[in-house]
């Protein structure tokens, strides 16, 4: 009798518990199958539209029995869940716990003993309303084995009421246990290769792992699961794991999931085929690698069209277009012009590819890193401006003013206008086309050439349009005396471009170099003026004048050459603003210390970079945010060639500046800021990064 009395409190305690489980919408009720019990749990008991909730399939095999991992090993079968969900809801994959090695005779299986929690995320649609009830059903199928195996299945179903707000269920502890049993997802560089008789896996962990190490490949027919794993460190400090290939191995997967376990923890990795990937993929995923070729081609084309509006291109092209509009037979001109543009673009692309193959670390805009080229462009802009003003009549066609156009020279003229368009467009291309071109030069040669060609087609597109759509050509303003005035007015954007280029040159070569270049510019103007005089003068004086003019113009190049040999003094190169100078070592040291860092990669010839600095980075708001957050500001200057910066840009999938990278406090994924900045945007990003 006393025994029964002792049981009564326990029974009383059990009654409400049983009642609770009956009414708890967050559990399905347990299904008993031979040697195993199965039940479905939800981490939410009321759900809201658009929620992502987690469901757990709990399997409780009898003592000594087990179920299997995604790779069951040499025999066995992985547990599967087929979901029946309301329309619009989506189930994620099973989040597997860390498996256990289960030896059977001379074979090895991977599976789970005891309570096993298989978690899956379910995303609900937005179009469900409070008051609805959602039914989430799982058809779970497993193979439960001791020595013998028994397949089993269960239909497990939950009905959850929809509300405005999510309400967590009472099973938090169960979900915590489930998550604690899972490996931690990491993005350590990890590759594999299939050698003659073994699988070789190379992993670069970001921490020291403590033996014993166990490697679990998530792919079934890859290794002989029972064979010993040979774990070594290679010269680069990477972990190399070798295991004999499975006798039944036949097809190399592109990638597979795996779990690496050491004495303290377990990590989930994705292994990619080392033969198909670059040997060392960047540690941080570059944003942009997913840019598809087609998208890059479209971007390049669109960018090319936009280039027509750039201050360095528009003056030349608008006149050419007007010139063309006078004549019939636009098509050959349009085609000749397009050919000129394409040839020039492809030549630059080919040069870039050749240099890349040669190992030179270059990026788009590289041509602007050479003072001689910057100075040359400044001269060209200035000369074109003078020609537009009318100091000199540039001969038939090449500026395309149009008056002297004949069919023949006109075509050649159109071709060279195309070439010229690309040359003068080049200061504008670099900053605006950074992403597409960065993508281009990291691609195989045909893709890279395709992107440059698309850019060229875009640049030539308005001309092609005028050439091939007569209606459009007719809509252009009629040529007349106003064209002369328009032409002269167009000289001024070119002069401004020239000033900007000279400023860049000044940053590169210093004040002495700049003065030399300006003296050269005066000589150039003198030469052009004399040439113009010769065009007006009588026959007899002409040749002598022309010779003098030509000599002076050639001589004008000498100071530029001298200037390009100079280097700006240190004081000119160092910025006066708060930023420190970026070096790889400096960044690494700060990262090591867990300090938040803002990296700004810039160049003086990059208009976007300069605009961002003026408008956002060099403002009181941002300076205050930098100080408040303790964020170190590092600036890398790519105005001149710097292989370290080129490499850093490539790391982030870029091939040009600007690039703004913000590293948060205490490590973690860096954030790449947009290419166009506002003070508020930078301030908010800094606050996020500085948060402990």
């Amino acid at each position, binding site marked *: 009798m006393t025994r029964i009395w002792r049981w009564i409190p326990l029974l009383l305690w059990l009654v409400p518990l049983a009642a609770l489980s009956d009414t708890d919408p967050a559990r399905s009720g347990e299904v008993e199958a031979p040697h195993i019990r199965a039940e479905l749990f939800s981490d939410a008991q009321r759900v809201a539209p658009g929620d992502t909730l987690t469901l757990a399939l709990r399997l409780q095999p009898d003592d000594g029995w087990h179920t299997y991992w995604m790779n069951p090993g040499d*025999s066995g079968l992985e547990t599967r869940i087929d979901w029946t969900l309301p329309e619009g809801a989506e189930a994620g994959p099973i989040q597997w716990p860390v498996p256990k090695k289960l030896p059977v*005779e001379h*074979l090895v299986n991977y599976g789970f003993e005891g309570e096993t929690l298989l978690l899956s995320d379910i995303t609900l649609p937005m179009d469900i309303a409070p008051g609805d009830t959602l039914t989430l059903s799982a058809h779970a199928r497993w193979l439960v084995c001791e020595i013998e*195996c028994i*397949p089993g299945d269960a239909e497990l179903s939950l009905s959850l009421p929809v509300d405005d707000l999510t309400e967590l269920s009472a099973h938090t502890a169960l979900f915590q246990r489930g998550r604690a049993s899972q490996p931690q997802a990491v993005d350590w560089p990890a590759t594999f290769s299939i050698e003659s008789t073994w699988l070789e896996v190379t992993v670069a962990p970001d921490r020291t792992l403590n033996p014993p190490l166990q490697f679990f490949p998530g792919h079934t027919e890859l290794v002989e699961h029972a064979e010993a794993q040979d774990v070594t460190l290679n010269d680069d400090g990477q972990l190399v794991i070798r295991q004999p290939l499975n006798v*039944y191995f*036949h097809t190399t997967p592109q990638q597979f999931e795996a779990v690496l376990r050491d004495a303290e923890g377990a990590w989930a990795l994705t292994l990619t085929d080392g033969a198909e990937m670059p040997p060392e993929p960047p540690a941080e995923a570059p944003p942009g690698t997913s840019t598809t070729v087609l998208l890059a081609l479209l971007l390049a084309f669109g960018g090319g069209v936009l280039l027509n509006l750039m201050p360095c291109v528009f003056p030349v092209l608008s006149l050419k277009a007007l010139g063309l509009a006078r004549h019939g037979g636009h098509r050959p001109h349009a085609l000749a012009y397009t050919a000129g543009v394409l040839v020039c673009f492809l030549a630059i692309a080919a040069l870039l590819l050749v240099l890349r193959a040669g190992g030179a670390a270059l990026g788009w805009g590289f041509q602007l890193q050479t003072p001689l080229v910057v100075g040359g462009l400044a001269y060209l802009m200035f000369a074109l401006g003078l020609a537009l003003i009318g100091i000199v009549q540039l001969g038939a066609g090449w500026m395309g003013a149009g008056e002297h156009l004949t069919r023949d020279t006109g075509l050649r003229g159109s071709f060279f206008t195309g070439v010229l368009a690309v040359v003068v467009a080049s200061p504008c291309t670099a900053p605006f086309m950074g992403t597409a071109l960065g993508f281009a030069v990291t691609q195989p040669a045909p893709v890279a050439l395709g992107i440059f060609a698309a850019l060229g087609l875009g640049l030539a597109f308005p001309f092609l349009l005028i050439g091939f759509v007569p209606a459009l050509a007719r809509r252009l303003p009629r040529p007349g005396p106003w064209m002369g005035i328009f032409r002269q007015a167009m000289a001024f954007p070119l002069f401004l471009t020239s000033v900007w280029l000279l400023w860049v040159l000044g940053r590169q070569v210093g004040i002495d170099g700049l003065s030399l270049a300006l003296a050269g510019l005066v000589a150039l103007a003198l030469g052009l003026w004399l040439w113009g005089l010769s065009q007006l003068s009588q026959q007899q004086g002409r040749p002598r004048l022309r010779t003098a003019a030509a000599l002076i113009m050639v001589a004008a190049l000498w100071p530029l050459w001298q200037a390009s040999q100079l280097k700006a003094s240190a004081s000119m190169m160092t910025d006066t603003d708060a930023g420190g100078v970026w070096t790889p070592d400096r960044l690494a040291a700060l990262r090591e210390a867990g300090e938040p860092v803002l990296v700004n990669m810039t160049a003086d010839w990059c208009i976007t970079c300069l605009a961002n600095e003026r408008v956002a980075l060099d403002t009181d708001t941002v300076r205050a945010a930098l100080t408040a957050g303790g964020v170190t500001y590092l600036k890398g200057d790519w105005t001149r060639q710097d292989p370290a910066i080129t490499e850093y840009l490539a790391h982030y999938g870029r091939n040009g500046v600007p690039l703004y990278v913000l590293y948060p406090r205490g490590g973690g994924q860096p954030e790449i800021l947009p290419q166009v900045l506002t003070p508020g945007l930078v301030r908010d990003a800094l606050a996020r990064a500085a948060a402990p």
Partner: protein
Amino acid sequence: MKSLHHVLIGGLLALALGSAHAAPRVGQPAPDFSVVDTAGQTHSLSDFAGQTVILEWTNHDCPFVKKHYVSDNMQTLQRRYTEEGAVWLTVISSAPGKQGHVSAEQADALTRDRHAAPTAVLLDESGDMGRAYDARTTPHMYVIDAEGVLRFMGGIDSNPSADPADIPGATPYLANAARAVLAGDTPDPAVTRPYGCTVKY
């Protein structure tokens, strides 16, 4: 230097693999055996020279084996290929006292009750034949050509499950391989993942 390192490692791994269990290789002569059938007659591979031989490892209590017998899939395969001239040997490697172990009478009763049609059922109580072939699961299938060369080994089909409903949707690896070998062709694939219960040695 690095390649030498690779060769050494490869050699060591191959050695380790070899010592653990001499797995048969497709394209190599199949291991010989000498095992009694349910009628007490001893069979060896050399007895079947000039004939295509199909080996089937079985354990009547294994759900994966049941899948292929309940559905009549295994019996159909046995009938089809023995009619086409192949020898079909069903092998039981379960040790005495382990799941799937049967006496000769029980084995014959199983054949009768299930309307199975193998050429013979071999009782490999010692597991010698199973280990020689590195038979891992039930079912586990092998096809040996008329010259005694192993041509196929692995799973019966592409659908590792215990559900008979999955059979029609699966790629019938064994059937394809048997047809190829009978026609004098090379099976493709020649090696597939064996699935099922472990052999109870």
